């Protein structure tokens, strides 16, 4: 008898608690009607939430500007966010949920390369356009997907500025250590470089594929230090990037150059968490727009005024993605998913991120040719700000080489 009562009590408590838990469920679904809905999957919570916030800010800023200027044929656009926590299975569930909402006309975002791949497959099956603005793995646009379009550079483009820098400027680099995280991003960015290095006379002294979100990298970095490389190349997200730099600083690891591959190395959180240890660390990857372009400078100031920090790669990508969407929506014959897809395919637009045109070349489908457009650069943290340093025609500062990592 007592047991049954207690069981009953548990069930009742659980049922009563349910509605309370819905407090944690996030913002309610948007009201239907006028707005044109674009769905996006971003990490809103979890260890990579910092990235999701950037897209949240950038998308909303762009959407607000477009809506203030009259929207699309009088209708405002609205971005619908789903949280993936940068977990691939949650990203899939989120994408499916968005696709099942008939009011959502297209998808964008994804953040993690792996998530991008998962979303691309769903988009291909369900016939909805997916605009990739950040996931960089080559495979996303090398699988022949018709419904996926990417405006940002593919991972294999990312290390090209570094390669040029090594050949043209830092000619005394001989040995290289590669530390990259076990993910599509880590491998996608590093493997092309890993193949290029021995072909060009460099020696790879350490190559470690490490599990991300580890608590302590001292042993790994100690191993690297034992080999004394000239260049340490890292492919990590935040918080790993900051932790690795802090711990290498602590261990006294001082190569001639430390270079990250975008992601965790090209965002403000990096300098906030790594502090002075991150000074003179380089990053090779997508740019955040041509710093000499007045439109880019204007965006930087607007962003700083509203959010308190300067936009970088992610914000530039997100902001441009919304503009690309808006441009397609204006040209589309109707607001059906198929017509929007067709309109996107025909995009030829100058954005803050540079030119956007979806081309098919070298096995890529619907890929914006970032290499040709010069949308990948080498930048460096100097005095707590990230400056483009190579190639010189888009540079804002002179590269400080060798870096001072003491």
């Amino acid at each position, binding site marked *: 008898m007592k047991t049954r009562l207690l069981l009953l009590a548990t069930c009742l408590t659980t049922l009563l608690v349910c509605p309370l838990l819905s407090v944690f469920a996030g913002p309610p679904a948007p009201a239907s009607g006028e707005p044109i809905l674009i769905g996006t999957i971003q990490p809103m919570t979890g*260890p990579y939430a910092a990235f999701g916030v950037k897209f949240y800010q950038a998308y909303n800023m762009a959407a607000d500007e477009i809506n203030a200027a009259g929207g699309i044929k009088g209708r405002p656009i609205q971005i619908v966010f789903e949280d993936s926590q940068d977990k691939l299975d949650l990203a899939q569930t989120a994408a499916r949920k968005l696709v099942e909402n008939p009011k959502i006309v297209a998808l964008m975002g994804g953040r993690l390369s792996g998530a991008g791949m998962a979303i691309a497959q769903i988009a291909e099956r369900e016939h909805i356009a997916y605009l990739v603005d950040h996931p960089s793995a080559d495979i996303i646009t090398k699988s022949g997907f018709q419904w996926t379009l990417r405006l940002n550079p593919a991972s294999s483009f990312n290390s090209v500025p570094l390669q040029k820098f090594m050949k043209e400027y830092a000619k005394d680099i001989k040995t290289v250590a590669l530390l990259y995280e076990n993910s599509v991003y880590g491998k996608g960015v590093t493997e092309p470089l890993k193949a290029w290095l021995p072909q060009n006379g460099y020696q790879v002294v350490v190559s470690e594929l490490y599990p991300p*979100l580890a608590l302590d990298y001292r042993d790994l970095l100690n191993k690297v230090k034992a080999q004394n490389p000239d260049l340490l190349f890292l492919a990590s997200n935040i918080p790993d990037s900051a932790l690795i730099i802090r711990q290498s600083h602590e261990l006294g690891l001082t190569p001639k150059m430390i270079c990250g591959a975008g992601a965790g190395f090209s965002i403000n959180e990096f300098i906030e968490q790594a502090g002075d240890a991150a000074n003179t660390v380089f990053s090779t990857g997508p740019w955040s727009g041509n710093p000499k372009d007045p439109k880019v400078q204007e965006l930087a100031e607007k962003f700083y005024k509203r959010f308190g920090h300067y936009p970088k790669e992610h914000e530039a990508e997100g902001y441009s993605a919304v503009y690309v969407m808006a441009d397609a929506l204006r040209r589309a014959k109707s607001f059906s998913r198929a017509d929007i897809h067709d309109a996107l395919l025909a995009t030829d637009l100058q954005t803050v991120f540079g030119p956007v045109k979806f081309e098919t070349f070298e096995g890529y489908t619907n890929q914006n040719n970032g290499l040709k457009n010069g949308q990948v650069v080498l930048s460096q943290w100097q005095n707590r700000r990230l400056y483009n340093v190579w190639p010189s025609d888009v540079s804002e500062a002179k590269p400080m080489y060798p870096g001072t990592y003491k």
Partner: protein
Amino acid sequence: MKIIPYIQSMVNGLLVGSLYSVIAMGLTIIFGVMRVINMAHGELIMLGMYVAFWAFTLFGLGQMAALLISLPLFLVLGAAIYGGVVSRVERRAGEMGTLLVTAGLAYLVANAAQLVWKADFRSLPSALTTRSVFLKGISLNYSLLWAFLAAVILTAVTYLFLIYTDAGRAIRATAQDREAAALMGVQIHRVNMLAFALGTALAGMAGVLLTPVFYVYPYVGRVFLVKAFVVVVLGGMGSIVGAWLGGLLFGVVESVASMFIPSGYRDAVGLVVFLLVLLFKPSGLFGRSRV
């Protein structure tokens, strides 16, 4: 051949190992006395980490203060868990039951923590956690050094408590031979509760020491649980000295091994050690041979 990296590796291993020791000590006391495996031990450590984190972030309290808060806090928590959950289940469902219920508890606590505190990784400001000093080319992180010292002191205090106080002796007696202890007038139920509370308090305080060194997030407990088990089995279930030495040894083995194997397999080192010890010397370095 350069020797410095290997020395650095061993030093790192020793420092981190002492933290493993503190984590394992709590678990070994509980097992030694009650033959209960507390699958929720890792979550208790996680709670200790959050206590230290919030104490600093919300109230600006340092580690010493956090340690002083967590001692009574976790003693009470441990007693409550024992009285409210573990003892009842043990009576009704035996050893297996406690295994299952503590596993359930672990799951519950970790996910409740995520619900309340979100899955974000937290850490103390880097200015506090990255200061280090160089000694003949070997880098020593301040927080790790301090944690090492604190761990040694905690181990010594626990050891002295167990040897020289009545309560401590009661615990040891029960661990050695439960029936005999009962016959000698030891209140087994009280001793159990004390042991569980003590083990929990050690876990919580270990968490406080870990906060400046590792990221704090709801599932971090799982990582430490496995390490705790490895050390407990290595050192011998129920042995304090075993837990201390086992922790140091394990820390060094893990660190040095990772110089030679791909970093992805680092976590497997502990697991393999664990299985090997269970296979060839289940009583560990200092424990009793009953398996």
